């Protein structure tokens, strides 16, 4: 029996050792916040051109991936970041964690979507834009009218019927908050959020959850992003995707090579591929705005006026004031101990 157990132990150790295969040629560990259901599509499209490079995804929400990357600052595990908020990449850049590299063909991209340093440390892919998901069935049952503006959401009729992501953990939540502060100014921005807070039923951890909850009728109004809303609508949810009239915050998904990668060659191959026209056409399947000019076609279920409502986002403001904004937000809204119905 002892021998059998010992045999089992040895087998276990062997398996453990086998699973230690950190960075091998032809394999890239890619950190991402791209929606999980799209990962396979992205990898397949890349592998169609580069079958010899395997992508190992580490997917999580924007906040989690950013935290993971920062935690691994002195011992990076990722080779490439593909599909993370530009504000997060700015944070990593300010820690010196990104490898400057100009992917082949980067000059074709809209300069707004490329890091200003030369060589750039990151390149944009597409923009994801805040929107409000309104469940028409549940809204109708409750006798709610669809909100038209952000300020509408502070009206008393929506009390307890709005859900939004917590900016401390969700990139979407943070871009909402930072866009309100940029649009309304600091004082009015916080005043607006005070009003909104009175109506909020809960702050969720992830940015797609409010829209999915609205889609499932769990709450009539979810502050989320347009892409998520369009997907749920396509799945059959009775949703109306609303672009508030004042303008909407947005962030871009971007790509960067992690400094210190053991596999720089493959990482560059992937970075080159992510700026191609083909890749941008792929991004366009979910995002109305992509980095490659002239590629974007209208996306099904996307609200028509989305593009013109995107605010002139100041990413550096967002990155450098992130901590101050989040501290203030937490102080104002996160200490509520009473749940609200």
């Amino acid at each position, binding site marked *: 029996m002892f021998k059998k157990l010992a045999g*089992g132990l040895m087998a276990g150790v062997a398996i453990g050792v086998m699973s230690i295969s950190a960075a091998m040629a032809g394999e890239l560990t890619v950190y991402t916040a791209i929606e999980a259901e799209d990962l396979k599509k992205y990898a397949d499209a890349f592998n169609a051109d580069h079958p010899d490079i395997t992508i190992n995804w580490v997917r999580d929400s924007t*906040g989690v991936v950013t935290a993971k990357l920062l935690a691994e600052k002195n011992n990076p595990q990722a080779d490439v970041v593909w599909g993370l908020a530009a504000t997060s990449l*700015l944070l990593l*850049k300010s820690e010196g964690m990104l490898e400057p590299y100009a992917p082949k063909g980067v000059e074709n991209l809209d300069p707004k979507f490329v890091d200003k340093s030369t060589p750039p440390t990151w390149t944009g892919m597409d923009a994801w834009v805040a929107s409000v998901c309104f469940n028409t069935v*549940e809204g109708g049952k409750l006798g709610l009218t669809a909100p038209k503006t952000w300020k509408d959401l502070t009206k008393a009729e929506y009390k307890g019927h709005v859900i939004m992501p917590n900016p401390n953990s969700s990139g979407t939540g943070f871009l909402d908050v930072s866009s309100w502060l940029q649009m309304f100014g600091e004082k009015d921005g916080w005043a607006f959020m005070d009003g909104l807070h009175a109506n909020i039923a809960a702050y969720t951890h992830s940015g797609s959850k409010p829209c*999915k909850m609205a889609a*499932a009728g769990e709450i009539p109004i979810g502050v989320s992003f347009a892409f998520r809303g369009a997907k749920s609508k396509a799945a059959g949810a009775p949703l109306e995707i609303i672009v508030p009239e004042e303008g909407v915050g947005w962030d871009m998904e971007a790509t960067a090579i992690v400094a210190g990668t053991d596999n720089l060659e493959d990482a560059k191959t992937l970075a080159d591929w992510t700026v191609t026209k083909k890749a941008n056409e792929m991004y366009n399947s979910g995002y109305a705005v992509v980095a490659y000019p002239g590629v974007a076609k209208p996306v099904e279920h996307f609200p028509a006026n989305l593009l013109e409502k995107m605010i002139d986002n100041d990413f*550096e403001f967002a990155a450098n004031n992130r901590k101050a904004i989040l501290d203030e937000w937490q102080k104002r809204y996160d200490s509520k101990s009473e749940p609200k119905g």
Partner: protein
Amino acid sequence: MSSTDALGPNVSADSRIKPKLGSDDWIMRGYMIVLAVYLVVALALPLYAMLSKAFETSRFDLAQFEVQVSDESGAFNQPAATLKQLNDKSNFVAEGDLATSSDGRLALTNFFPDFSFRSPVKYRLRGLDDNAVYLVGSERFAGTKPAEFDSNTFRKVVIRPIQSHGLANFATYFSTPALFQSIQNSVFIALVSTVITVTLAFGFAYALCRSCMPFKGVFRIIAMAPILVPSLLPGIALVYLFGNQGFLKQFLMGESIYGPIGIVVGSVFFTFPHAMIIILIALSISDARLYEAAVSLRASKWRTFWTVTIPGARYGLISAAFVVFNLVITDFGLPKVIGGQYNMLAVDIYKQVIGQQNFQMGAVVSVVLLIPALIAYVVDRLVQRKQVALLSARSVVYQPKPSRRFDLSCLAYCALVALFIISILGICQYAALVKFWPYDLSLGLSNYDFDRMDGGGWAAYRNSIMLGLMTAVIGTVIVFTGAYMVEKTKGFTRGRASFQFLAMLPMAIPGMVLGLAYIFFFNNPANPLNFIYGTMAILVICTVTHFYTVSHLTAVTALKQIDGEFEPVAASLKQPFYRLFSRVTVPVCLPAILDIMIYLFVNAMTTVSAVVFLYSSKTTLASVAVLNMDDAGDIAPAAAMGMMIFYTNVAARLVHAVVSRYVLGKTQGWRQR
């Protein structure tokens, strides 16, 4: 080799076989030291790393930077001044605001009240040591090279903090209501859940033990079911039952399930079996002679209950209460799913680390969470020690007598509890099969298409089974051999006591704290063990360590049943200890060994708290996938995965039952007369 007195009295009485014993002893001690080193590396050092992280502070060091300001024409006539000198003069930034997190940034314009970005004034900035770091926009600069900025660029210059040590994080914690409010919330929820669970579990155990109702075996199995699912699952079930689209929403009378109500109901569900089993054992060792005495003294049933039953079970009740309290206060999955805006300590750790990237504050919350967990643990240990002393050789086992009314009410009560447990599990399975809740209630398997969701897909499920098997095999070997060394090594009192202490420690460490400690310790490039970070190995080590104590106690209890005479006999027959171990000890203890294996397997399948910080792309886990899918709003697939874990654990239990029966027949014949 070693002196006689060091080897203890057994050896001095048997001095003619000293050499043989000596070498065995040294092997055993050596092995024990190896295992102790394992526990130190897997437990003590990570905890130390976490503690020191809690005291790691970030602070803007104003003496690190020197700024020189030009006049309107761009000529630098004024002498340069450090930011510290500027601040000492006018106190632009309060002393308290200089403490920040590792992500802190401080704009230099703070120090120049008449700053205007349109002004032609120029600024010269110089770091005074190599650690001076500042950003221009998001570009990073470090060191002592001077740089010159026009006003429009200067507004984008921010300085970064330096690392130091101190209590600043704790000061920040206790001055942030959003954070310390959680202490009160956590304690409140844990107390309420404890009272409810222990009361319900006592009733259930009482019915099982003291009534003659039918279906006792079935009820017992149903009551143990919650152990087989992750603690998040009741949260998901409650969303479907009492959420805004839930079947039973009206039962809440307008209250929201998201919040304390949901956390308490879910906590009762997942802690119920733990409390029930402890109380059941306590009730079943009560002495029937006391009841006979009560009857002959004509005490009323009510009086007997309060003077005999409750005092007899008091240690079990206290122990159950502290176990439940500990489970609830350290649980992370449930409040994460159903807690809404109600902050709890374990969730705060996650939010600080994952949401805000504030590892130091995560460590501070961990230290705070350790305190109630440690108290509950110590009290539980003290009580358990007393419980054993209650058993006496002359005790008579209580045999319940049939009583129609009492048995029927027991049956009704147990049926209600069983209905609660089954409906929680049933609703999850139903929700997992519904296509699009609540608008398309037709059934299908689309929610099982895990590869299209967060959390790692079916690979996560396979990884979990792998983790379960490896944890069960490796963990059992480590735990059982460790327990053997502690029990059977002669002398070496101090070493055995320290090993015992290390083995008991994991129970007091909440999973979140352990996971975070592992990040700090293993994800450090200076650590030679760094290579296991991100692999299955670290998950196995973490899980074995997390569940070490209960397994260790099971093994020790089994080993204590073996007479200490075996060792001297084996020694006098000149048999080495490992032969005795493999021929006698292991076969005799096989039921306990199998129990340890199933315990480790089930827990490895359901645990979330420790591994949530440690999984990587290749080692995603089913339990974490439940969390991540729920997090992304894919609640139905989360329920589906949760139920997959449940069925897997049921299957494992069945295998365990079959193997146990077979093994009992094969090796435990000596137990029958």
